[in-house]
């Protein structure tokens, strides 16, 4: 096995393990559609009256702290508020084609959540009932989930010095388990948020579009956006204005006016990073081996080169000694022992002097 082959296998193993850990493994390697019986909520912005009852109910059922501004003060809907660690849902007012409309913000409970894909501590999980839930026991507070979320939903307990956690809408998962509706849904006085099976809600949304021509934009936000979400949004139509052709999502500007991003694409956010992030555990495990091996190989090559060099030097030295011996023997035969001894001495000194000069100059040994 050479180095290239090794890296290829490592890469494949990384992608494979990432897919194995995502929920898409059983469905398809490209995109996870959604759990067939999962719950969802359809938010009809043409119905919402901005009464903030959902916010009050959320605070009550989740035992969140009392807000600074009471829920009866509706002026706060004018601001473009975001969800925070202590306000898991907020209702904002938006101008759509010149008319005021309200939209409720909360976790969209993606089919294939970006927050879960970004969390290396595996705090987030998508449950088969549709909820994206967070377990903070392993949370390190890196807030990668907040960066990854395309809807800017998770909030962080910045006020806590010790063990701050990420907080967001839980889809009232504990209540769902008890067979109760989410707090906000139960509190809505106009059914602007309709709870049901996600598959039913898609049909209901389509039926509303068909039965009320001109009332809704012919696009269900969240059916495919960001790989599909459990919470979906219907937007009020401009009243016959044509849909711009350069909009890849086919929606007009109504969703943008409602503060929704129509350019998230239909692939889960995680698809962009599963390959790379899936390789992280593999890298953690194999990098010591990989670089340790590379280091050992380099060391060994250096040692081998040194040995070879030393051998060449030894050979050269031996050759020189032999030549000196031969020359001394010849002098001894022709001119007697005394001359031979002097010649040997002279040659040895000359060689020593040259060696000393060479090493002093810093040049390599030269024979």
């Amino acid at each position, binding site marked *: 096995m050479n180095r290239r082959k090794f890296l290829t296998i490592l890469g494949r193993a990384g992608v494979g393990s990432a897919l194995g850990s995502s929920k898409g493994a059983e469905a398809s390697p490209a995109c996870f559609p959604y759990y067939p019986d999962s719950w969802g909520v359809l938010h009809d912005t043409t*119905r919402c*009256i*901005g*009464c903030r009852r959902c916010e009050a109910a959320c605070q009550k059922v989740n035992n969140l702290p009392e807000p600074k501004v009471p829920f009866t003060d*509706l002026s706060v809907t004018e601001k473009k508020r975001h969800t925070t660690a202590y306000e898991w849902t907020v209702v904002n007012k938006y101008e759509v084609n010149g008319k005021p409309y309200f939209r409720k913000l909360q976790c969209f409970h993606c089919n294939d959540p970006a927050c879960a894909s970004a969390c290396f501590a595996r705090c987030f999980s998508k449950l088969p009932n549709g909820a994206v839930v967070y377990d903070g026991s392993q949370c390190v507070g890196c807030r990668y989930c907040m960066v990854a979320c395309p809807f800017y939903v998770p909030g962080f307990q910045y006020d806590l010095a010790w063990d701050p956690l990420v907080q967001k809408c839980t889809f009232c998962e504990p209540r769902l388990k008890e067979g109760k*509706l989410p707090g906000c*849904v*139960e509190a*809505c*006085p*106009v*059914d602007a948020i*309709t*709870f*049901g*099976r996600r598959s*039913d*809600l898609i049909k*209901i949304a389509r*039926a509303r579009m068909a*039965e*009320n021509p001109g*009332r809704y934009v012919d696009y269900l936000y969240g059916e495919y956006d960001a790989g599909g979400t459990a919470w979906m949004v219907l937007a009020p139509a401009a009243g016959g204005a044509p849909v711009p052709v350069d909009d890849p999502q086919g929606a007009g500007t109504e969703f943008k006016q409602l503060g929704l991003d129509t350019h998230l694409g239909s692939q889960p956010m995680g698809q962009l990073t599963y390959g790379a992030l899936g390789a992280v555990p593999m890298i953690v495990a194999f990098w010591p081996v990989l670089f340790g091996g590379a280091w050992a190989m380099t060391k060994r090559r250096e040692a081998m080169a040194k040995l070879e060099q030393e051998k060449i030097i030894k050979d050269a030295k031996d050759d020189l000694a032999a030549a000196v011996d031969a020359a001394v023997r010849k002098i001894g035969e022709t001119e007697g022992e005394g001359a031979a001894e002097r010649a040997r001495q002279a040659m040895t000194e000359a060689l020593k002097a040259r060696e000393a000069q060479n090493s002093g100059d810093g040049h390599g040994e030269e024979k």
Partner: protein
Amino acid sequence: MRNGTTLFLLAVTLLAFAACPPAPGAAPAALEPTDSGAPSAIVIFPVGAKANPKAAAMQPVTFNHVVHEKWMERTGKDCIVCHHTGDAVACTTCHTQEGKLEGAHITLYDAMHATKIAPRTDTKPASCVSCHSQQITQRDCAGCHTTLVRNARNEAWCTVCHTVTRSMTAEDMQQGIAGTLPERRNEQLATETELSRKMVTYWKATKAPQKVVIDSLAGKYEPCVFNHKSHVLSLMGRITENKLASAFHTEPATLCVTCHHNSPASATPPKCASCHSPTIDPATPQRPALMAAFHLQCMSCHKDMKVARPRNTDCTTCHKLRAPERAANQAN
């Protein structure tokens, strides 16, 4: 009707008719004459070029010219809205069942029913349906027709216009389709039809309860006392004089079924809670829960009829806060 020639011809025709003594026994009471001198009502036959020996076709339409002319006058509109070429000729001159070159091959059906009419350089014509469906957007009609009531395109809807007196013979029909029915006979048939039209008489508000106490959900708020009578009277008062509404509201209970929907029209309709459960039923998630059903009905009608008060978020106008909460509120 600004064309001198047409006016002259019409005048001559009228004079000719005036000179002739009316046929004995076949003269019903006449309709009010039109200002333009055109017939007060006409029957629009499905004129076609193809041979149609059995006269198999849709029932012709009886068109009341006077009523439409008066509406034009009232709303400051011109004859050109319908007579879009500027010539006061019959629609079937250019628009036949098969379509003709003169009518840009637009068939009679499309000319009368099209709702999406392409813009053009000269006058944009209106079809019967396009103009009538515009009428329901006016404030008096919008309460029911914007959100709550969707116009059914059924048999009853067609026969409001497609109706003609029973005294029309098969021969009349054949001639009408061929375009050879004498004008006088046409007018006679139309007049007879129009005079026999009976406008609907709505049920009187007095038949219904004056006040309805909605208390099935009362909890945080006191029960809502809904003034049923004043709502019915207000809605009825707006449309009793409206001939278009009267023509299409074919049942005495038509007004009632806007709110008392999805059940047969009756003087004793079922309660809202019969179908709308207090919490959403997982089997029918498309059906609003009871509280939402009330709010959606009331709010959408108030919004569409531009009733400024109460605001959607002003809860206590319709149902007062219960005493303990009221006390707690005052303490705050």
